[in-house]
C-alpha cells in the first residue's frame, strides 16, 4: 500500500466495511457483530499506522492523498490530508468505534445489521469531515453524518426517540444549510478574483481572508460568511443557547449513539471553529471573540447549573457536555498556543471521559432499565468494580490532576489567563460546580444507604463491559500522566494555525 492511499483507506474503510456487512445474511447477528468489531479494530490499526507515519515537525497537511477531480466543472475534488489537530481527532474516532460496538453487544438486539452499517457509515462521515481538504467534500461528509445518526437515535433510541431524532436532524440542518451558502459564497468570490472554480481548502482560505470587513455586520461579507459557518458549528458544539437538542438526543439515543455523539460528533463543531472560522475569517474572528468568550463562559456555568438539578443520569452527563465544551470554546477564543492546544486536547479528553460516562451509565441501565438517580443509592456495596471505574471517570471529568481532564483545563485556563483573566475567573467557577454535580450524583447513586431492594441482585460490571471501557481508561490515565505524547504532534499545526 502506498502511503498516499493510507488516508483513503482510513476514511473510506468503514464505508467499505458497511458494504461487506450488507451482504451478511440478516439472521447471522453474531457474525455481523464480529465483522463490525473486526472492521473497527482494523480501522484503529490503520489509524495507528497514520500516527506512526506522521511527522510532528511539519505544520501543514501531510499524508495527503492525490487530488482526484470529482466535479471538475466546479473545481471540486477528492482530497484528504491531516495535520496534528485532525490526527488526534481521527485517533479518537477510531478508538471509540470498537468501544461503541462492544458496548452495544447486548443492548442492541434488533436490526443488528442496520445498526452496524449505520455506525460504520457514520465513522466514514466523521473521519471524512476531519480530513477533507476540499471544503465541498467536507460539507458532504458533514451532512452525511446526519443520516446514520438520525437512524441510530430514531430506530434504536428510547421512548421519545422520534421527537429527539427529528429535532436533532432539523436543528443541525438549519445551521449547515447556512454554511452551504457561506461555502458557495466563498467559492464564488474566489472565482471572481482568480477566474477559476475551486473548493480547495487552501483556495477558500485565501478567499475568506480577503473578504471585506465592512462597517456593520449586515454590510460585511466577512462577518456574514463567518456567521454562516459559526452558526453551523455553534449548533454542533453545542454552544449556549443552541444546546437544547443535545439533552434530548443524548437521553433518547442508545448508549452507543450517545458515546459517538458526545465523543466525536460534538467535536466537529469545535473543530470547525478552529479549522474554518478562525483561519478563514481572521478579522471577523477578532470581532466575534468577545461574543464567543461570553457564550463560552455562560455555557460553562449554565451547563453546570442545569446539570446540577437533573434527575436523570444521562441528562446530567449531557448538560455536563455543554459545560465542558464551553471550556474548549474558551480556549479557542483566547487563541494563545497554550489555550488552543489545551482546547484540542480537551476535545479528546471530553470524548474519552464523557464517552466513558455514557458507557457506564449504559451498563447500569441495561441491568435496571432506569437512569433515574433516585432509583439507586448505596450500590457501591453490590458493584464495587463498577463503582471504582465510575469514580475514576468522574474524577477525570472533574479535572483531577493526574488524569486527562486536568491537563486540558489547565492549559485552556492558563493560556486564556494571559489575555482574558476575567473570563478565566468566571470559567474557573465552573470547576467548582463541576465537582458539585458529579459528586452529588456519585453520592446518590453509589453511596448513601442501600434503599432499593431490587438493586440487590445488580451484577457487577462484566468482562465485555470492562473491555469496552478499558481503552478509554488507559488513555484517561495516559493523557493525565504524560500528555506530551499527544501535545507534541499538534504543536506545529497549532502554532502555524495561530500565526495567521
Amino acid at each position, binding site marked *: 500500500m502506498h502511503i498516499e492511499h493510507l488516508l483513503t483507506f482510513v476514511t473510506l474503510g468503514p464505508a467499505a466495511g458497511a458494504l461487506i456487512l450488507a451482504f451478511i445474511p440478516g439472521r447471522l447477528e453474531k457474525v455481523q457483530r464480529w465483522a463490525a468489531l473486526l472492521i473497527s479494530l482494523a480501522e484503529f490499526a490503520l489509524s495507528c499506522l497514520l500516527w506512526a507515519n506522521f511527522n510532528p515537525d511539519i505544520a501543514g497537511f501531510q499524508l495527503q492523498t492525490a487530488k482526484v477531480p470529482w466535479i471538475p466543472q466546479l473545481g471540486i475534488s477528492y482530497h484528504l490530508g491531516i495535520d496534528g489537530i485532525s490526527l488526534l481527532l481521527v485517533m479518537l474516532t477510531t478508538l471509540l468505534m470498537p468501544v461503541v460496538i462492544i458496548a452495544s453487544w447486548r443492548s442492541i438486539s434488533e436490526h443488528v445489521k442496520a445498526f452496524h452499517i449505520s455506525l460504520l457509515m457514520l465513522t466514514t462521515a466523521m473521519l471524512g469531515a476531519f480530513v477533507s481538504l476540499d471544503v465541498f467534500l467536507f460539507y458532504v461528509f458533514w451532512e452525511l453524518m446526519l443520516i446514520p445518526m438520525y437512524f441510530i437515535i430514531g430506530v434504536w433510541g428510547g421512548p421519545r426517540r422520534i421527537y429527539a431524532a427529528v429535532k436533532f436532524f432539523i436543528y443541525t440542518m438549519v445551521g449547515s444549510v447556512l454554511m452551504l451558502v457561506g461555502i458557495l459564497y466563498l467559492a464564488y468570490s474566489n472565482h471572481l478574483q482568480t477566474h477559476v472554480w475551486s473548493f480547495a481548502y487552501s483556495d477558500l482560505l485565501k478567499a475568506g481572508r480577503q473578504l471585506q470587513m465592512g462597517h456593520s455586520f449586515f454590510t460585511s461579507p466577512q462577518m456574514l460568511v463567518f456567521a454562516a459557518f459559526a452558526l453551523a458549528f455553534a449548533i454542533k458544539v453545542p454552544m449556549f443557547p443552541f444546546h437544547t437538542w443535545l439533552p434530548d438526543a443524548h437521553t433518547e439515543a442508545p448508549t452507543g449513539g450517545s458515546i459517538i455523539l458526545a465523543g466525536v460528533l460534538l467535536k466537529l463543531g469545535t473543530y470547525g471553529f478552529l479549522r474554518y472560522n478562525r483561519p478563514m475569517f481572521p478579522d471577523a474572528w477578532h470581532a466575534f471573540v468577545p461574543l464567543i468568550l461570553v457564550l463560552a463562559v455562560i455555557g460553562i456555568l449554565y451547563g453546570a447549573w442545569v446539570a446540577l438539578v437533573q434527575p436523570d443520569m444521562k441528562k446530567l452527563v449531557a448538560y455536563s457536555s455543554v459545560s465542558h465544551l464551553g471550556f474548549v470554546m474558551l480556549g479557542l477564543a483566547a487563541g494563545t498556543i497554550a489555550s488552543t492546544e489545551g482546547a484540542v486536547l480537551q476535545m479528546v479528553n471530553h470524548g474519552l471521559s464523557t464517552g466513558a460516562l455514557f458507557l457506564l451509565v449504559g451498563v447500569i441501565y441495561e441491568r435496571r432499565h432506569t437512569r433515574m438517580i433516585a432509583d439507586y443509592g448505596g450500590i457501591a456495596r453490590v458493584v*464495587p468494580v463498577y463503582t471504582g471505574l465510575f469514580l475514576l471517570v468522574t474524577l477525570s471529568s472533574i479535572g483531577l490532576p493526574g488524569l486527562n481532564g486536568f491537563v486540558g483545563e489547565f492549559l485552556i485556563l492558563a493560556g486564556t489567563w494571559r489575555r482574558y483573566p476575567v473570563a478565566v475567573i468566571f470559567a474557573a467557577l465552573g470547576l467548582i460546580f463541576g465537582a458539585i454535580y458529579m459528586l452529588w450524583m456519585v453520592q446518590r447513586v453509589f453511596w448513601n444507604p442501600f434503599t432499593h431492594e431490587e438493586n440487590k441482585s445488580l451484577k457487577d460490571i462484566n468482562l465485555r463491559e470492562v473491555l469496552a471501557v478499558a481503552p478509554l481508561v488507559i488513555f484517561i490515565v495516559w493523557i493525565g500522566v504524560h500528555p506530551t505524547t499527544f*501535545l507534541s504532534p499538534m504543536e506545529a499545526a497549532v502554532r502555524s494555525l495561530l500565526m495567521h
Partner: protein
Amino acid sequence: MLGSLWIIPLLPLIGFGLNLFLGWRKARKSLVTIAGVGSVGLATIAAYWAIIGYLEQPARVIVERYFTWISAGKITVDAAFQIDPLTVVMMAFVTFVGFLIHVYSIGYMHGESDTAYARFFAYMNLFMFSMLVLVLGSSLPLMFVGWEGVGLCSYLLIGFYFEDTYCAMSGKKAFIANRIGDVGFVLGIFATFAVFGSADFTRFLPIAAAHPQQYAGWATAIGLLLFVGATGKSAQIPLYVWLPDAMAGPTPVSALIHAATMVTAGVYMVVRCNVIYRIGPAALLVVAIVGGLTAIYAASIAVAQNDIKKVLAYSTISQLGYMFLGAGVGAFAAAIFHVVTHAFFKALLFLGAGSVIHACSGNQDMRTMGGLRKVMPTTYWTFLAATLAISGIFPFAGFFSKDEILGRTFAAGASNLHGFGWLYYILWFLGITAAFITAFYMFRLVYMTFHGEFRGTEEEKHHLHESPWTMTLPLQVLGVLSIIGGFIGIPKLMTGHASWNLIEHFLDPVVIPLGTGHAAEIAAGVSEHSAGAGIEWLLLLVSLSIAVAGILVARSFYAGEHAFEKPARFVERYPLLYKLILNKYYIDEVYDKVVIQPLYRFARFCWKAIDTIIIDGVIVNGTAFMTELTGDILRFLQTGNVRNYALSVAMGVLLLIVILW
C-alpha cells in the same frame, strides 16, 4: 536514594495498587497489612535515606527533573521533585507519623471486613503518595497534583462508611469546600505563569526575590489567590466548615489527614512561597489576620462540643490558625516548627481518642465517658502528655512552638511591622486568649473522658479495655515526641545561642533574602529582632500562666465532686450564648441558606424556566410550531380543487384589469 527521589512516593503508590488488587480478590487481612503498612514503612526508610544523603552533601536545593509533564506555548511544567530543608522537615514527619498511624490502623480497623480493610489501606497509601508528591513537587502545578490528590483521599476516607448518609455527605462537603479553595489556588498558578513565566520554585521565587518592588503588586494578588487555596485545605475562615464533619471518617484518618499532615499543606505552601508573601505584605497581613481570627474562633467552639473528635477537630482548626498567624508575621520557621510539634501531639490526641472510642464501643460522646484513666493507663498517660503539649506547658513540645509564634507576633507589634503595629498587638492578644481557651477545653476533655466515674451503661462498662499493642505502641512513640519534640527549637532566649534553635537554623535557606533596598525587606527584617530579652521572658511567663489558668478553670469546672455544676450554671445564665457556641455560630446553617439553597433554586430556575420554557419551548419548538402553523394556513391555498384555482385566476385577472385600467 538521593538522585531518585521518585521512589519515595512510588512505594505507597504501589501499595495502593496492591491493595486494590487484594481487595478485589478478597484477600486475607495479613496480606493487606504487609502491602499497606509495608509500603509506607519502606517509603519512610527511603525518605530518611534520602534525607541523610541530602545532609551529607553541600547543596541546599536539589531539583531532580524526570520528564516534561505539560508543555504547550509558554506553559511548561516538568515532572520534577525537589529537596531542600523545608522538604526535609515535612517529609521527615509525614513519613514517620504516617507510618505510625498505619501501624495503629492495623489494630483499629481489624473489625472491618477483608475488602473494607483493603480499601482502607488502599486509600491511606494513595494519601501517602499524594502527600509526598505535594511535599516533593518542585513547582506550584506539581504541588497542586498532590494538593488535589490528598483532597481526593480525604473525600474517600471521610466517606469510608459510605452507606451512612452523613459520612457520604461529609466527604463530598470536604471535597467541594476544598475545590472552592483550589480554584483560588489554580488562579494563583495561572497568574504566576503569566507574571514570571514559570511556576517552578527554583525559577519564579528567585526572580521575585531579586525584584521585590517590581513584582509587589502581582505578588500580593498571587499570594492572596494561593491563600484562598490554603483556607480550603487548611480549614481556615471562611472555608473551615468541612473539617468538623470530616470527623465522620475512621479515627486514624482524622489523625493522619485531618490533623497531622494534609491540613498543614496550606502552611507549607505559604512558607514555600514566602518570597511572594514577603514582597506583597498585604497578602501576608491577610494570612496573619485570618490565622489569628481562626485560632480564637475555632477554640471558642471547641469549648462546648461534647463529641470527643469534634473537640479535637475545632482544636485542629484553631492550631492551624496559630501556624498561619506565625507565617503571617514572618515567622516562617516557627510556623513549620508548630506544624511539626502539632503533628506529634495532635496525631497522638486523635489516636488516643480513637483508642477511647475503640474501648467505648464506638461511642464518641464524652458525657457518657469518664474514669477511663483506670482502664486504659497507656492511653491516658500518653493523652495527657499530648494535652500538656497542646496547652503549652513547659517543656512539652507545643510550648516552644506556640510561644515562638506568640512571641514573634508580639515583636511584630512592638516593631510596628508594615505600620500595623496595633493590629499585631490585637492578634497577639487573640492568640494568647486562644491559648487560655485551648488549655481549658483540652483539660475539659481530659477530665470528662478520663477522670471521675464512668457514666456509660453497665454493658459498655463491661466492655472497656486497653487497646492492643499495635495501637498503644504508636501512642507511646508519639507521646515521647510530644514531650521532647520541642527541643528542636529551643529559643535563643533560654540558651543564649541562636544555633540551639535547630529547626530555625536549618530552615534558614528557605527564606530567600530579597533584593537590596526594599522597604518590605527592611520591614520583614524588623520582625527578626526580638522585643528585648526582658519582655520576652515576661511574655513567656504570661503564656505559661495563661495555660495554667486554663487548666485550673477546667479543673474547677469538670473535676472533683462538684464537676459539671459550674458549667450547668453558666448555661443557665447565658442560654443564648451557649446555644450559639454549641451550634457553632450557625455558620453551616447560614451557608446553607445563603449559598447552597439559592444555588439549587437558581439551577432549577435555569433548567425549568430558561432551558425548558424559554429556549426550548418558546424559541426552538416555537419556531417549529410557527412553521407548522404557516404550513397549515398556506395549505388552504393549495386545495387541489380546480375550481378554487380557476377562481383565483379569475380574481387575479380581474384585479389586473382594475389596476391597469
